[in-house]
């Protein structure tokens, strides 16, 4: 199997790795770079657990080939805040019981971040739409929707 170099930034840090050609970004992030915050739930683009932000756009790392990310800026939940600190979304998810088993949480937070990056004051409908590609089997979604709305309000307060 041919190994090819890939180079991108992960949460602002330069990364350069040799990966097997044709490998998914999900596998490259987890197995090569060791960012285990990105979860593989279905490998078929239906669950959203592997959601990451690539160049500002929400994408599924299980369906993205690592080589196609050369030069890209990749964001994951693992790099959302400095160790010991919490992003407003993380804070709101923890505070609002928006996690249960925790497996969908990193992908859910990335989907929420992609929304808030573009729309800092979303409506409830905007939030529902933004996480519509992310499956949670535990919470019934309501605490998650509420947490994202809470985070958007906390955000606007901190800006003000």
């Amino acid at each position, binding site marked *: *199997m041919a190994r090819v170099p890939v180079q991108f930034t992960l949460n602002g840090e330069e990364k350069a790795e040799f990966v*097997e050609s044709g490998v998914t970004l999900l596998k490259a992030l*987890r*197995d090569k770079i*060791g960012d*285990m*915050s*990105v*979860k*593989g*739930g*279905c*490998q*078929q683009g*239906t*669950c959203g*657990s592997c959601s990451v932000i690539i160049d500002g756009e929400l994408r599924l790392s299980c369906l993205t080939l690592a080589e196609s990310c050369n030069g890209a800026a990749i964001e*994951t*939940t*693992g790099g*959302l*805040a400095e160790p010991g600190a*919490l992003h407003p*979304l*993380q*804070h709101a*998810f*923890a*505070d609002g*019981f928006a*996690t249960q*088993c*925790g*497996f*969908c*949480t*990193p992908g859910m*937070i990335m989907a929420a971040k992609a929304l808030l990056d573009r729309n800092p004051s979303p409506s409830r409908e905007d939030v529902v739409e933004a996480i519509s590609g992310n*499956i*949670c*089997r*535990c919470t019934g979604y309501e605490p998650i929707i509420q947490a994202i709305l809470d985070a958007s309000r906390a955000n606007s307060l901190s800006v003000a």
Partner: protein
Amino acid sequence: MELRKQYFSDERKDDLKEIGQPRPRSDSLGHVTGTTAFFADRTFPGLLHLKMVRSPHHHARIRGIDLSEAEKHPGVARILTAKDVPHNVYTILTLIQVGPEDETVLATDKVRWKGEAIVAILADSERAAHEAAAKVKVDYEVLDPVLSIDDALKPDAPIVNEYHGQNFYRYDSGACRKVRFGDVEAGFAGADHILEQTYSSAPIEHAPTETTGCIVVPEGSGRFTCYTNTQAMFFTLDNTSIILQMDGAKLHMVGGTVGGGFGGKVDVIVEPIAILGAKLTGRPVSFIYSRHEEMQISSPRAAEKLVIKDGVMNDGRIVARYVKAYIDAGAYSRHSPYGAQKSAAHFPGPYTIPNVSVDSYCVYTNRTPSSAMRGFGVTIGDFALEVQMDKLARLIAMDPLEFRFVNAYRDGDIKAHRQPTEGAALIECMQEASRAANWPVADQYLKMSSAKREA
């Protein structure tokens, strides 16, 4: 959240420090930062990937297995078949003296459901394992399948599982689990109305976001560390020990956070074969279900068929209830004989009825073996019972909630299994539900209490 403290206030101390107080989840900071470690969140050099060759048929005889091409495939480390498994019997409930030895770990001469495991491929990469799996040639003689409870119980139905000799599990009590209380026939004879209805359900998959799996590492000490997302650690330890004929002290099972279980991760399917692979190759082995396997291979909640016949009086009292329950185990028993037993034990529901008869059957079909899921053997019964309760209320033109008050069990009532009722709270739950849902009921029901019947 609002606590209604007026209920059972005399049975409870109110000076507790934790209960009634909101507390943060102990695991939430790990979850939101993505630092919670799930079983698959680790890598090991030299890791092998296990992929299973599965039956494409619901029911077939295996005439032969040709591994010659697959074994030569680049990247393949080892291929496992039934003869590699020390004690090739999977029976989850053997440890509590329920499970019959009716299932293999890897199929030998027959497959009894579409997806049954036959050959395990261990390869350097998932891709190599998939490629080699495609080169395994299995020669099948396809047999007629049995795909429904009704078909399984026809007199000339093909036998699904020869171990049982018939398409249902034989309990020590006979062909079904039975409950007999009072005299249902007399009850029906004296009833103002009789209502008999049939309810049925399809299998339900838990669909956890994290699929079932494990990673096994052979240690220098001769032990095997198995990182698993099982919900049943000691079932897994004990069953693996039996299947592999290996001292339990050699098996170091490491559990932890489970990415959604809902009862779907209590079968011991991935661990024994992955540990066997690690033992025979000396390398770490990862066996993680694909989403397709999680949906089609992992045990679902059983399909059920329930026939409920009730005798009811015009004043609302149910005087007789007969339930015939059929639980579709699929091709093998797993937890289903126990599930059917739970089903029998659950009827007639949370109601006090003087005459009750229940027959609960565990039926075999050529479908994915069913197993545990949140209240298995009970939940579908509750669905059917509560629909039946609504229909009965309608039949006698009574408010459905008031109808339930009339029949609700109370402390001291003798249940159909001859156990006295203790700690009932149905009356109080319905009183609160009546208020919360703004569904008013007559005053007499709001004055009721679970603790004692009114004079």
